[in-house]
């Protein structure tokens, strides 16, 4: 029998850390999801009941729908705006560096601080947004205080903060594109639009998809801004899985149920990430 390589000892610390901080919490979460356990009470084994309860739980299903809507909008809009901004900032013009720095500022701020500022701006009576609307003759809006507008307003905050990230990723991609394709297009007499549509964007696609994966994971796990601005309200109008999960775990102390929500959420994140990685693989036609 072959003796294990002594080099294996070198990876032991990493393996121990991964087991302790990733594998064990996950296994324990899975285990807890099989119990009905409210902190302070006795835990009772209930098998898959927590999962079957979630299937019939309208509030949970609504929170899944809110999460998907929020994520779709908070990924799509920054991708479009960020790519457009990258194309602009890739050009040479006066004060480009200064404007580019200003453009990335929202990304640097702490989400909770941003959320507090936006909360004040959204205020129907004292917020600056309704004041600005009044200047152009538009009536006041209830913004996040309206069940119909809450998610749209939260998307707006997210887009404002994270479009610069997409811009930076795509800008990096633009700088690394091979020049031959552009020279060939130029020689063939392609217009600027044709070059953009048929050369630049297809070559950029892998970078855009990387940005999409990063944004999607971020958007799916958004908690801070939503909690500070709406706490999932009005009612449950903007309650995402994360907010629902937080309530179950840290307000109601229903650890078993919350663990089941975590597992479902994890499956959702994995499924969506695989989808995007699959798309990314398909877009690598030039390799």
């Amino acid at each position: 029998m072959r003796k294990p390589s002594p080099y294996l000892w070198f990876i032991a610390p990493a393996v121990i850390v991964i087991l302790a901080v990733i594998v064990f919490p996950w296994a324990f979460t899975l285990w807890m999801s099989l119990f009905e356990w409210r902190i302070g009470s006795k835990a009772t084994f209930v098998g898959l009941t927590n999962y079957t309860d979630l299937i019939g739980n309208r509030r949970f299903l609504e929170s899944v729908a809110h999460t998907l809507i929020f994520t779709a909008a908070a990924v799509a809009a920054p991708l479009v705006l960020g790519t457009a901004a990258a194309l602009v900032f890739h050009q040479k013009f006066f004060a480009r560096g200064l404007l580019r720095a200003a453009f990335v500022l929202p990304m640097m701020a702490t989400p909770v601080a941003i959320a507090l500022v936006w909360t004040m701006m959204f205020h129907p009576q004292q917020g600056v947004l309704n004041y600005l609307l009044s200047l152009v003759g538009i009536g006041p809006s209830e913004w996040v205080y309206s069940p119909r507008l809450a998610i749209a307003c939260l998307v707006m905050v997210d887009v404002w903060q994270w479009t610069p990230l997409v811009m930076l990723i795509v800008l990096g991609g633009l700088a690394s594109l091979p020049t031959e394709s552009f020279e060939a297009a130029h020689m063939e007499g392609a217009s600027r639009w044709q070059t953009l549509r048929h050369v630049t964007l297809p070559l950029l696609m892998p970078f855009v998809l990387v940005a999409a994966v990063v944004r999607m994971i971020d958007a799916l796990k958004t908690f801070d801004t939503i909690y500070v601005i709406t706490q999932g309200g009005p009612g449950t109008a903007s309650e995402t899985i994360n907010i629902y999960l937080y309530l179950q775990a840290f307000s109601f102390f229903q650890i078993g149920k919350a663990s089941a929500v975590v597992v479902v959420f994890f499956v959702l994140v994995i499924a969506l990430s695989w989808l995007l990685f699959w798309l990314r693989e398909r877009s690598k036609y030039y390799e």
Partner: protein
Amino acid sequence: MTNKIHRRTVIQAAAAAGGMAALTPWSFAQGAFDWKRFAGTSLEVHLVKGPRGELLQKNQKEFEDLTGIKVGAEQIPEQQSRQKAVIEFNSGKTSFDVIQLSYHVQKRQFAKGRWLEDLRPMFANVPAEFDRTDFTAGGMFYATQADGRIDSLPLNLDPWILYWNKELFAAKGVAYPKSYAEIVEAAKKLHDPANGIVGFVGRGLKNANVPLWTGLFLGFGGQFFDAAGKLATETPEAIASASMYRDLLKNTGPAGVAGYNWNESQSLFLQGKAAMWIDGSGFAPPLEDPTKSRVVGKVGYGVMPPGPKLQVSATFGDGIGVSAFSTKKGAAFLYTMWATGKVMQARMLASGGGAPVRLSAYSDKEALANLKVPVDWLKAVGESMRIARPGLPVIEPVTEFRDTFGIALNNMLSGADVAAELKKATAEFAPVLAKSES
């Protein structure tokens, strides 16, 4: 009416105080009681961020000098404090010896886990000045568990009162309402959205909004449970009170009121843009602060008018207790006695940081002379104490209760049917309650 209340409050309090005005921070030390018996010990105290926590921390050196006990106190925001408490108590080891608690949220939870030490055996050895009979009945009601255990001492009560803008009332010739119907009527008369004035403001935000409704519910004669112990939150009284809640906020409240908590309500009232506001009693200091408020000197502090069946002030409260897992219970008990003593209670009154639970505080001459809030506030609070009732059911899953019914109230503001929402919320909450008590 107000003069009568004032006289009664002062006479009642003076009688109860019986010469307490001369009390100094050192009064405790003058008797035979040995405050120094735990000298050299260190205590960890878990306080909730707010005026009460602030007051205790500010004066803790006095306790340290009195007892020789070193205190490490930490003020934690309410939500985080509740999470920390549950997690630590559940682990069977707490990092604190003394903890401040909110009765309306944590009383039943702490009792079920037996997380606080029963203080009754310790009452056998207390200084005469401690005088347990000085605590109000409401305070001791909150501090006493269903099985008779007294596992905390009351710190303050927070009766809900009606704040009203005297200037706006006078401008429209409206008198202070004498009934629930008159509140609605006055709100309609005072509501003037064209000039940015709303007739009424209050909590619409889910969870936070429930006490406003339950206060009205109690006034309609509602009870949280029927004689058989079944949840009674879809009764005619519940529907009538929820309809009143919806009408007040939807028809005479600000746009977007579904997102209003106490701070948004306070902000609108401070600006002089709301004629009436029902909320806890602790808002007099900001309303009378000229650097923040445009309504200084114009605020009326009113007792809740009688409901169709009962005159009630929905009341909430805080207490302070000794962790059952503490190894320094004796020293921790000294801290709770000091924190709820006559001197600290008088200080609380003077600062306007809460309504004391000791009668003596209301006649403490020094406290009254240093009162930083109008005497009208004191009258309203004194009278509210007389009609105080717990504003929430004393149950373990009170947060779920607030969440479930808070969403129902929110939906009503968006146009949903009141009776249907209450029925749905009751059906949703009943199994949660049943499980918690099983």
